[in-house]
């Protein structure tokens, strides 16, 4: 049966299945049935459909891979080696009391290099071994300060309190103060990355 197009042209004579049920369109009536690997005959329609879906799927997968890499790359970076930033001569760091030391760090930011103003709490009992704390409160990141009268680190945002060892005394902070990688070379203190603390020793 061939169908007449309203323009007068006739279209290819594939028998038109009854409308309504999409299942019927998958199995057009006639000798040919869509087949599978069982060796039955495969209709032109179903063969073309599977070929198009397969080839389209392969093309999409090939395109999706670089697109995914492009979009996800900031989350998939591996941490490289530490870059050390020179912070202060050891001789200038007071012994016995925590000191807030400010320094500048040049960091690659996209296509630019930015200069960040940073700080850290540094304490030493002998001028040889150091404890360096990241200045962000472990609760939500506010900068905390050392209160010499009470001998404690206090956070003004939500009243978090840490002792000189960095442990949480009271308040909402979930863990002890984070420390920072540090080393001494040539009489100078160098700082690296922040190391998150994972134990709260009370």
């Amino acid at each position, binding site marked *: 049966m061939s169908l007449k*197009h*309203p323009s007068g042209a006739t279209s290819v004579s594939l028998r038109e299945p009854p409308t309504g049920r*999409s299942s019927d369109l998958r199995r057009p009536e006639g000798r040919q049935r869509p087949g599978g690997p069982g060796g039955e005959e495969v209709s032109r329609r179903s063969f073309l459909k599977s070929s198009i879906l397969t080839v389209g799927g392969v093309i999409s997968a090939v395109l999706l891979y670089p697109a995914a*890499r*492009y979009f996800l*790359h900031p989350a998939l970076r591996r941490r490289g080696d530490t870059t050390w930033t020179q912070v202060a001569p050891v001789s200038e760091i007071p012994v016995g009391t925590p000191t807030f030391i400010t320094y500048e760090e040049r960091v690659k930011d996209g296509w630019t290099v930015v200069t960040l103003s940073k700080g850290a709490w540094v304490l030493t009992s002998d001028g040889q071994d150091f404890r360096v704390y990241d200045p962000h409160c472990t609760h939500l990141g506010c900068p905390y300060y050392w209160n010499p009268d009470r001998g404690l680190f206090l956070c003004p945002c939500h009243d978090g309190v840490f002792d000189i060892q960095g442990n949480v005394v009271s308040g909402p902070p979930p863990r002890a103060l984070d420390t920072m990688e540090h080393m001494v070379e040539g009489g100078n203190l160098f700082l690296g990355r922040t190391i998150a603390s994972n134990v709260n020793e009370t």
Partner: protein
Amino acid sequence: MSTRRSTQKTQEGWLEERLELEPVRAALLDRKVPRGVGWLHTLGSATLVAFITLVVTGIMLTMNYSPSPDHAYDSVVFISNEVPYGWLIRGMHHWAASVMVVLAVIHGLRVLFMGAYKYPRELTWIVGVLLLLLVLSSAFTGYLLPWDQKAYWATVVGTNIAGQAPVVGDFLRDLLRGGDNLGTVTLTRFFSLHVAVVPVLIATLIGIHLFMVVRQGIAASPGRRGRRTPASR
């Protein structure tokens, strides 16, 4: 409303029961086409594929591009050299842009020489012409964004051409440039047009254009229309 039980796979039946999408699928995929259609009739769809490519790659580019004179060029270099597959995304955007312009023009010429713009398809043609103008605007505004020598001077020349128009020339030129000379404001204006304004207009008009094409059907090739009545499609 269909009350039959869904007999096929669960998901298909679930959606079909609620939305009755079968007529939509049939309208889009079981369209009748006249005899004599060939590769020339694929140009419109090809243009659409180019557009989709441009939108997707364009969105990805805007994640790393900075539209300020201080950063535009460096951000483009950053994309090309440092972002994983950035060179590929930018390259595809560049070539798809040229491809889309070429395809749109040839598609328009095809319609013109086959007389498919005639009744009842006049509106489709008008929308198509608007689409072509929008595509060219997109190409022009996008060209400036790398803010390199080629981009800068091409825009100087292009806006000067606009300035040649009688009466409104100078006004148009200054409007495009955002002032007397090309500067920061030009770049940001062009970025806004290229990313926020023109693509939305193109997408909307494509929707209208395609709706009419599907609704009216593909025009029969010239020579086969002899006895077509005015009321038929």
